[in-house]
């Protein structure tokens, strides 16, 4: 039901308003931005390919941009393309009024690089590399990485199976006051 029409129907707008955490103004602006992403040739497409989404200025420098696209994409081909509704989902999950549960759920899925439902050592290593950046002087040495991962697992893996599942992740998140802050 992704719409590429230039106008968003009133019923559709109120439905989106009810189902997401976005206000009416934000949904209209999102629609405008999304339409700009679709170039003239593919007016008939209902989803925007991943490269176009990644060209948004807000996502361009984000090290997690590809994971974000994959997580919110509902396309069958798993290519990370987003329909308008996926786009709204993305904005809603990242908005200030989203609940802690929603944010932590999507955060978990974004950090789960191999999509196996838990954060194991490999996921954690990729996560830390994303956080610390690309340049050589900001990366951690392998020894530091190992120690960091073992500390993380020690702190957050409650059932000691070597991975952090969603419940444990949410437990860690709920302890941090900085995770959900307005403004």
């Amino acid at each position, binding site marked *: 039901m992704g719409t590429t029409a230039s106008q968003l129907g009133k019923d559709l707008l*109120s*439905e989106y*308003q*009810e*189902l*997401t955490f976005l206000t009416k103004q934000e949904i209209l*602006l999102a629609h405008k*931005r999304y339409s700009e992403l679709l170039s003239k040739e593919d007016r008939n497409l209902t989803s925007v390919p991943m490269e176009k989404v*990644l060209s948004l200025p*807000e996502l*361009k*420098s*984000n*090290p997690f*941009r590809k994971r974000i696209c*994959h997580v919110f994409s*509902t396309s069958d081909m*798993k290519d990370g393309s987003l*329909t308008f*509704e996926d786009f709204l*989902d993305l904005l809603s999950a990242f908005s200030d009024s989203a609940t802690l549960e*929603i*944010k932590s759920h999507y*955060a978990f899925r974004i950090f789960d*690089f*191999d999509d*196996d*439902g838990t954060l*194991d*050592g490999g996921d*954690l290593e*990729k996560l830390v590399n994303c*956080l610390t950046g*690309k340049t050589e002087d900001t990366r*951690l040495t392998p020894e530091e*990485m190992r*120690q*960091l*991962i*073992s*500390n*993380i*697992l020690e*702190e*957050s893996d409650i*059932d*000691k*199976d*070597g991975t952090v*599942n969603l*419940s444990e992740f949410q*437990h*860690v998140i709920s*302890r*941090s*006051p*900085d995770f*959900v*802050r307005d*403004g």
Partner: protein
Amino acid sequence: MAYSVDFNLRPIMELELESLRGDDTAQDSMKGTGLESGSRETLEMEVLTTEGRDRLASQMSDVRERADERSEESIQTNLLVRKRWSTTTLRVLSSMPSRSIGQQSRLEIISQCNIRSTQLRRYHRQTQDVSLSSRPSIRGYGIEADSEDVCEEETKRQELVNNLQSLSAGDRVRLLRATPLSLAEKTKLRKLVFSDKVGQSLLSSQVPCCSLLKRALCHIWFGCLFILSSLQLWQVALKRLGGRFGTGVLSYFLFIRTLLLFNVFLFLINGLFLVLPQAIYPPLHTPSSHRVTGLELFTGTGYLSNSLMFYGYYTNSTINTSCRPDEATAGTGCGTTSDPHMMAYNIPLAYCFTIGITFFITGIVLVYSMSKSFGRSFRVFKSQGNMAIKVFCSWDFKVSKKMSVRMQSENITTQLKELLSEVKGGEEEKGRLSGMAVHLLAWSISLGSTFFCALGIHCFAKYMHLRRLEDAEGEVSVLHEARLLALPGVVSCGNLLLPGLFNLVSWMENFNSPIVRLYVSIFRNLLLKVSILGVLCYHWLGKIAAEPEQHGLQCWESFVGQELYRFLLVDFIFTALYTVFGEFIWKRFSQGVLRRRRKPVFDIARNVLELIYGQTLTWLGLLFTPLLPAVQILKLLLLFHMKKSSLLVNCQASRKPWRASQMSTLFISLLCFPSFLGAIVSVTYTILTIKPSSGCGPFRNLPFMFHSGKQWAQELKSTNHKLAWLNWVHHCLVENPLFLFLLAGVFLMVIYIHTQVLDGQRKTISLLQKQIENEGKDKKFLITSLQAIHEKRQYPLSPSSRPQGSEV
């Protein structure tokens, strides 16, 4: 550290034109692990036979095992990932409830939604933040085959729809919104729910008449929300600042906004109950001739001293509203007092009560926000390490500029490395002694400079008073008025220069962690401001108020009000000059002469303390200058825009880590404790012990200011017997010390009970963690036994058929 992307949906002016670098960290994200679960089988797995599957699975677990060995050598307990499992075992592993939550398994999410909606239905309560815990007792479904899956999903969905229909509309909307399903799914669910109830949707087109009303109300409500959200002050500017500089700097601007709201409240209350009545019925004053020069605006003297701004203007009489304004005189008021339609407005009483109530409400709001802030930042298990928290929560998704992203990465790397080195522990012995000496030196320098500054201000104030006395004997000239600005100027200079000295001094010190450095710097600045304000208060309340004639003043309250007004204004002027010139020049200097590539950094702690200082002055001056909040409002508005522009031009994001919520807690508590408490103490001291001047103001004939309230209570007792019990209550509660002791005792008991509850909760949490650990061990044991049995069946003669016992 906010987890929200700021999609500033206006066209962005500066576009980064660099090409996207391929991000290879996330490329293997879509490589399926080959672990089947319902609809997620990869194509390869379908083609192979069972043995082939086993081979592939073992290959994949080999790959993973190698990866694990690289990264998790030290972890002994990782049984569930390293072994070569059979297909059955893998299937069971992957469909374990704890692992399948995170996957896009709609069934699981729908069933969770189900559970929650059932709870809602039963308890009619709002949805709490229930974490999606894996409770095996509730979810007993094994996800084995596709066909069963689809069936299961359909029944679950139907159940969910039924549950949703029985909820109220508000709960339904909230539940749907908070479910982590995709929007397409939610739309389908919503259609199913609403299709059975025709005309129930508030926004459908065929409506009976009562739904029209609901629809209109709904529209009005959304309209109001929209207006409210667009009125939220400075929303766009704040988002832009947060995106570029991060949450630390943002907290400074949010603090400005908070202070602005406080001052607006003060201004409204004072204006409505105090200034407005007096403005409508102005008292008679002998018109004095003052030359109108522009300097009056800065010094508060001249025509301003007999205006609504200051204490001296207000009468000490009751205004009777039936009087014409020119008939109102000091004394008993005009007209017959027996006229029942007349309303008497007692100005001294209004003055006393308004100030009292303003402070009371401000105090309550401050304490409430402080406790909320504390509750947010304090956690039960704070003592445990926070590396996991740092890794999971410290990425600020609001930041979108490339430079800021890089800065954030550097920040996080620094923090992680620091934490790791802390864990490794161990300090060198020999550095300790010299470090101590440096610390001592630094502290002595800062304390000494603070002391000398305070002493200097004290002496200078005395000198200025003497000069003023001399000037008062001569004729009034512009120079004499300008001299009034000397003391505020000196104080502001001290306020600006000494923190720079403190920064210099702390730069040569060596601290264990940057957060300690920050706290030390805040403490030193705070000490400076407290001592300055203490000296000034002693001067005003201790010296001037006690012997006003010696200082040549008829109306010492107006004088003190004018002083505070001058201080506020001069402080603002100096801050403006410093922001415009100081930061700009420093940037030029550091880039040109020192050849630093980076722009200077915005010093958050120092700026926030200056804000708190300004607010303290406002609170101190409220008693003497009822319109001072208006001045502060203007000052804050201008300050916001000035600091914002200066920031965007001159500064860049700080490299130092900034714990936003802890710092906000600290600032609010600093606002509450030294600042507000100090103001309250001074005002109470003034009201209770200092004799008001006899020539001006609403309390001119009373021995103490609070006597107006006492007099009114006496009158009440004699005129209106029904309200006499108020007097009795006042006598028993406020003047009786026993009541206060009881109150303190009750508070202490409440605090003790809360600490005990907290203790109990800690113990419960550690017990539950132990229990989860034990269940994890059980799980491992079962899986290894399962694997052993499978191996025994497949390879009966192989030596590896020995059952592997569970390892710790």
